[in-house]
């Protein structure tokens, strides 16, 4: 029996045993208790089924992607750029998209980091639970909710205004906007959980708030900060809608910030739109590559944060 099911006590059974279970009152009680225990059991069962459905969905997704992607996955796919006619079933791979996605997500994450680290530290060190702090958090949450297609459209509007063409730089900027709220809110959540004593001790020694932020908060909260950055990186590498307008697509590996670049989600998307079965099969393989990268980032951040956690003051 589970330790926290303290409500499922043996009260009715004990009471009826003492009285011999004869009186009507006890009988009524017993019936009543049994009914609600049946309800309890029923509810718990459907809750477990719901949990299985959610976990099953994950299993199903992974199984589908692996079983359909694996047969077409080859070294050629991850080590070569598309040859002429790749999208009509000829040879080559999607190295351009893998590298392009790495550029986009790295650039976007770096740009978002430049903003989100100061914001998170400012929220902690200077604002705390003040009204302005709540406004900033509200606006970050609202930004988080804005879909990436709207950021994409915004980026596109901005590009027309500035006379820019689709390029790696535009993709990086829009991706940074998508990642900014994710990263900042994740950092804010962990930084907020820092023990207040630590901050007070540093302040009592005469540190300024800036020194507390720079020397105490960042060190103590390093695991959380890195997890937040990797979380945003993972989100950035998988985002298709925002780079659709802004980063463009190309079959070559981008060498300049001003040139368009391919990205992995769009490579998947375009290959699936192909009328050629073998190209679609490679689209599944590309989806598998993307999934593997994202899962590696996700597990990597968990591992790293657990590892770094050993060096913080508990």
């Amino acid at each position, binding site marked *: 029996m589970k330790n926290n099911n303290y409500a499922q006590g043996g009260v009715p059974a004990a009471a009826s045993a003492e009285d011999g279970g004869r009186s009507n009152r006890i009988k009524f009680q017993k019936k009543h208790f049994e009914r609600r225990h049946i309800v309890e059991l029923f509810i718990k069962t459907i809750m477990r089924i719901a949990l299985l459905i959610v*976990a099953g969905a994950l299993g199903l997704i992974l199984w589908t992607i692996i079983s359909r992607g694996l047969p077409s996955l080859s070294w050629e796919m991850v080590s070569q750029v598309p040859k002429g006619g790749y999208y009509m079933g000829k040879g080559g791979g999607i190295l351009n998209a893998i590298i392009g996605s790495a550029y986009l997500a790295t650039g976007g994450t770096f740009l978002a980091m430049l903003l989100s680290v100061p914001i998170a530290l400012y929220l902690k060190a200077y604002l705390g639970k003040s009204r302005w702090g709540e406004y900033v958090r509200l606006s970050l949450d609202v930004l988080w909710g804005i*879909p990436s297609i709207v950021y994409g459209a915004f980026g596109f509007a901005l590009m027309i205004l500035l006379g820019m063409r689709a390029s790696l730089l535009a993709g990086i900027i829009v991706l940074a906007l998508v990642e900014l709220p994710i990263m900042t809110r994740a950092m804010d959540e962990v930084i907020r959980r820092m023990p207040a004593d630590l901050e007070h001790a540093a302040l009592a020694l005469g540190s300024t708030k800036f020194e507390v932020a720079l020397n105490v908060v960042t060190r103590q909260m390093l695991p959380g900060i890195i997890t937040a950055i990797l979380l945003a990186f993972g989100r950035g590498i998988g*985002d298709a*809608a925002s780079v659709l307008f802004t980063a463009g697509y190309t079959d070559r590996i981008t060498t300049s910030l001003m040139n368009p670049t391919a990205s992995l989600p769009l490579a998947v998307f375009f290959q699936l739109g192909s009328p050629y079965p073998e190209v679609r099969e490679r689209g599944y393989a590309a989806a598998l590559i993307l999934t593997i990268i994202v*899962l590696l980032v996700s597990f990597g951040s968990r591992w790293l944060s657990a590892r770094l956690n050993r060096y913080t003051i508990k």
Partner: protein
Amino acid sequence: MSEIELTQIKTEGRLSRPSTPSRARTNRAAQRTFFIITLVPVVLIIIVATALVVRAYPILNSYSFSELLFGDIWRPNDGQFGFLPFILGTLWVTTVGVLLAVPPCLLVSVYLAEYAHNRLRTIAKPILDVLAAIPPVVYGVWGLLSIVPFVDDVLAPLSERWLGSIPFLAVTQPTGFGILAGGIVLAVMIAPLIISVIFEVLSTVPNDLRHAALAVGATQWQTIRTIVLPQVLPGIVAAIVLGASRALGETIAVLMVVGNVPQIPTSVFDTAYPLPALIANNYGEMMSIPLYDAALLGAALVLLVVILIFNILSTLVLQRFLRRS
């Protein structure tokens, strides 16, 4: 800087006075810089909205709101820009997705918050994290490979046999692509968000309340139903609205399974063409037809306005809840 200070402490035995003003100056400078950076998220919302309004202005100027929002004909070449099929398509897919997601999400989050062992929680959280980390396009691939055939082979025949007379469940087309497939994919996509937010909300209920109910002899489910859930009902609604706003804007995954035919849907088996898919599908040709780009950015504006309303309301409610803990 800290090294210099340390030596000063060593030599003089106290914090040296001359260094303090410069540290204070650094502090003030940092405060000012940080403050300006903190303005970015606040200002960004306004900038995004303004840019979309400016770029959508030509179409807002040449058509009335009712023509745009309630017009049901979309022929950009003839200058007809009726958003109604897309708005209804968005609503249908979102509604189906949220309806499918809410019951299991509610059950799972209550189970995790109230019943589950800590060990189960530590297993469940990574599962949800992975679900949340999977990119939309992968969800789309999964939808294409599993859900569309599932709808076509299993759900459509079942519905045709048993439920065909119910208005919204008539089977209308034979491919499996459509609102139901989009809704199922969306439901799985927004599940981790809804579950984790409801879980957070549930954990703000003080344990004393639970203990009091259990002490007078309530079962655990009775405690949850009569004490815990009524306490957090607004928070749960806010979590669902948050999930709905995420579903409204989801683009690529839905686009891949929903069929993309601009018609007004009448059944969950109909194809639909949600607003985000409209924007994503037509970015290529939108500069070649007059007013087309303004219309598409107008669609983005409609989406933004609806999502902002949903988002701000649910976030305000949730912030009030989560501040309690």
